[in-house]
């Protein structure tokens, strides 16, 4: 029995049967569209599938069972923080008062949401050590873009237009250099030092009057705290540049290190990582951005404002002229932010400190358990995650990290992040999180150690894995060479409406 269901499903289109479904909403009058000019109307109805509700339910329940998820098992995907998503958060976001509020509703009818947002900004400012927070960005990468656009506006306002470069360590998330490009900057890649940290000499050599910002992930994507961060920040500011912190790994340092207080100028926070809003199969997330006082004028609009009488309102158009402007349609991913707010309230100051302590403890425990079977390239205290490498196993047996990852599926686990950061050969980035029990951590370590043994004794069973999944390894080359990105072959809902 595999870790996920085995029954592959036909597509919605194959399940479709003309004449099924309907009856959900009343029919409009026959002439409802008579006033729409023929030229603007659709000539052929869209070929959408026709299913009755039980078929829809079977389709999606069966499909869901093909997924591995936090709710079904251990998901140690490094850098992604796959921890338990509390159910009260789901419930809260669905409260009709939150879910049913129109984004263009006047402030007077939106006081509950506005108050929640205002309070959430203050909580995140305290955690990040920043002076102000915007909740608008829709994702971490969107937060990065927002932050770097503020950096750009800051330099321009000071007439400092020669700053065209952003320094990014080679171990960074790919979103960092991609963001720099979107904001009109050139990326300068800084190599890592032997200890896994930023190469401070290379960093100093690259820093100069053309540097607009540095983007640092701390703890780094190797799960290591950048212990020379004080030096890096000081040099950055002496050069007239600003320091951006990628807060993807904030979950490791809650109550231990506040980036704004330490000297970072701007950072984003991934609510789906640190504050456990669900990952949703890839989204939606939210990427609030915190800034120090000198960047507050540039925050995207509109901000939430508290009036003297205790009521709340959104800023009016043009109220803060230096703002970088709007970064999305409306005020934020409120449904996600309600979940984060509930999570933060449930934990409070002591709970959040415990989150980081237990996440770091679990990662170091796994590191200690695995160090005999795998190479640990940076074998010192890690934060919430660490890198193990199969480079020696590969040399000895030919078995690669990819094979080990697939074999973990047979043993009942979701694989860690593999081949990231790109700087470690045959790397796996393992992040256990604070919500996994000691029994689960031990079972996972046992499985990895067992696979290391299999790599020597029976490499074929590893290289041909997974054996216990609904599909074997996929032909990704053909998928990319001859892309099939949509279903074709349904001819449209030509039959009359069934009811």
């Amino acid at each position, binding site marked *: 029995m595999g870790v*996920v269901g085995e029954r*592959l499903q036909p597509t*919605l*289109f194959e399940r479709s049967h003309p004449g099924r*479904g*309907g009856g*959900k909403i009343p029919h*409009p*009058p026959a002439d*409802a569209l008579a006033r729409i000019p023929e030229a603007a109307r*659709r000539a052929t109805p*869209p070929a*959408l*599938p026709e*299913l009755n*509700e039980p078929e829809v339910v079977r389709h999606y329940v069966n*499909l869901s069972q093909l*997924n591995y998820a936090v709710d079904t098992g251990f998901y140690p995907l490094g850098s992604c923080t796959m921890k338990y*998503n*509390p159910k009260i958060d789901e419930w809260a976001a*669905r409260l009709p*008062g*939150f879910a*049913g509020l129109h984004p263009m509703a006047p402030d007077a009818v939106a006081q509950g*949401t506005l108050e929640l947002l205002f309070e959430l900004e203050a*909580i995140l400012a*305290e*955690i990040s050590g920043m002076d102000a927070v915007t909740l608008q960005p829709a994702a971490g990468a969107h937060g990065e873009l927002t932050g770097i*656009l503020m950096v750009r506006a800051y330099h321009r306002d000071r007439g400092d237009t020669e700053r065209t470069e952003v320094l990014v360590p080679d171990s960074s998330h*790919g979103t960092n*250099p991609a963001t720099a490009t979107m904001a*009109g900057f050139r990326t300068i890649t800084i190599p890592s030092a032997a200890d896994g940290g930023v190469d401070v000499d290379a960093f100093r050599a690259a820093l100069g009057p053309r540097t607009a910002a540095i983007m640092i992930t701390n703890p780094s994507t190797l799960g290591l*705290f950048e212990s020379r961060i004080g030096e890096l920040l000081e040099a950055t500011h002496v050069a007239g540049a600003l320091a951006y912190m990628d807060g993807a790994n904030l979950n490791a340092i809650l109550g*231990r*290190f506040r980036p704004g207080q330490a000297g970072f100028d701007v950072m984003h926070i991934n609510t789906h990582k640190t504050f456990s809003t669900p990952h*949703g*199969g*890839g*989204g939606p997330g939210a990427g609030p951005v915190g800034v120090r006082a000198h960047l507050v004028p540039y925050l995207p609009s509109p901000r939430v404002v508290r009036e003297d009488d205790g009521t709340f309102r959104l800023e009016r158009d043009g109220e803060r002229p230096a703002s970088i402007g709007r970064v*999305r*349609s409306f*005020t*934020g991913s409120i*449904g*996600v932010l309600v979940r984060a707010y509930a999570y933060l309230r*449930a934990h*409070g100051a002591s709970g*959040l400190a415990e989150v980081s302590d*237990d996440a770091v403890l679990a990662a*170091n*425990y796994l590191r200690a358990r695995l160090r005999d079977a795998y190479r640990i390239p940076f074998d010192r*205290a890690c934060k919430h995650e660490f890198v193990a490498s199969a480079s020696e196993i590969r040399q000895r047996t030919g078995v690669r990290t990819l094979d080990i990852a697939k074999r973990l599926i047979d043993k009942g686990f979701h694989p860690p992040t593999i081949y990231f950061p790109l700087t470690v050969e045959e790397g796996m980035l393992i992040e256990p999180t604070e919500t996994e*029990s*000691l029994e689960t951590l031990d079972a996972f370590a046992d499985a990895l150690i067992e696979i290391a043994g299999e790599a020597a004794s029976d490499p074929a069973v590893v290289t041909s894995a997974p054996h216990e*999944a609904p599909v074997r390894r*996929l032909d990704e080359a053909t*998928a990319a060479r001859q*892309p099939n*990105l949509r279903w074709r072959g349904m001819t449209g*809902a030509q039959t009359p409406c069934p009811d």
Partner: protein
Amino acid sequence: MPYGPHTADDRARMLARIGIDAVDRLFDDIPADLRSGPLRLDPPEPELELTARLVALAGRNRVDLASFLGAGAYRHWTPPVVDQLLLRGEWYTAYTPYQPEVSQGTLQSIYEYQSLLAELTGLDVVSASHYDGGAATAEAALMTCRATRRERLLVSRAVHPHYRETLATYARGAGLTVEEIPLVPDGDAAGTTDLDALGRLLGDAERPVAGVVAAQPNVLGLLEEMPAIGAAAHAAGALFVAVVEPVSLAVLAPPGEYGADIAAGEGQPLGIPLQYGGPYLGIVACTEPLIRQIPGRLVGMTTDLDGKRAFVMTMRAREQDIRREKAASNICTNQALLALAASIYLAAIGPHGLRDVAASGAARATELEAALAAAGAPRIHAGAYLNELVVRVPDAGAVHARLLERGVLAGIPTAHLLPGEPGLEDGLLVCATEVTTTADIERFAGALRDELGASSTNGTAQSPVAGAA
């Protein structure tokens, strides 16, 4: 911690295995002068008390009013089956399907979403990675610049102002120029994109245009001459971006039919709650020649080693985690859960149901138009509309505020929506959908009649209505 498993004994065993005496040792690498003290936040709140706090906060929002708000976010009825299925943890507690062997559910659901939206838009390539209508419009416009290697964009003033502002933010970063195409000020085509002005803007040979962006229906609810806008763009070597509303595509010509190269838009009407603006679903669809320019995740059909059909993320060389600074965008998200909501909505409501949703909105809007006209607020424009329209109300801002006190959300004053636009100083943009009731329309029209009657008799004082906000 409310959700953690560790007992004191568990922690002691872990510390022993690591070979340290306290968890603090694991943070010794944080320089002493940069360590922070305890967070100044409230203590943990037990769930029992937290639920009460959340109910109270949600209760401070007013969602019980007769609402005629639209303008980019739409009230619709969603079959309960949509949320029941979304609540399965296998969907919402999974992540991006990096390991396809244990992610076929998410992968197939995204492939099906791509297929459904391809049908609706008449375009072949669909990305489920976008945040909302504004961000999708900005990314679509940026695509035209990469594809044409040009740096000038033209966007109709009748594209939602928030989308235009989002595009402006993105464009500033990328060093691109955005110019607005004005609207026809009067006559039968008033409120739609001015085709003559578009021709003049496109005619500047020194400054070639990458993309032309127009919305159907536009932000005033009016139907545009999309084929003509597309033809003008193409004649100048520019690409054409159509900003669309997906429910309307059940009855309106799809972008692929009138020559759009890219469709962008807001997927919220497809079963996603209003929730004050997000999370929403950005729609981006394009023609096949533009496939390498589209940002975000794409899922393709393939086979496994045994020839079994399966799905996988594909054409990854466009993406930030592979291409870093040379990627098509910094997007990492795929809005999978919202794309799933849209797909389940479409599957549950079906093609006939979707057409009924669109047509019911049109029918309700006809009823609304007549009722408001009878109350003294006739339509401003002559052109065709689907389910959103602008009516003339003297002193619209003040009337809007007084109607709110009577429990009616009377749409949006057009003077706020498009400040300075000629002819819209005294307008309200109002919207009807299948959930608009005759009772709500009567309430709106009745209150409006009172207000307009009151102001025409020179400011007779209104007595507050019992039960109003």
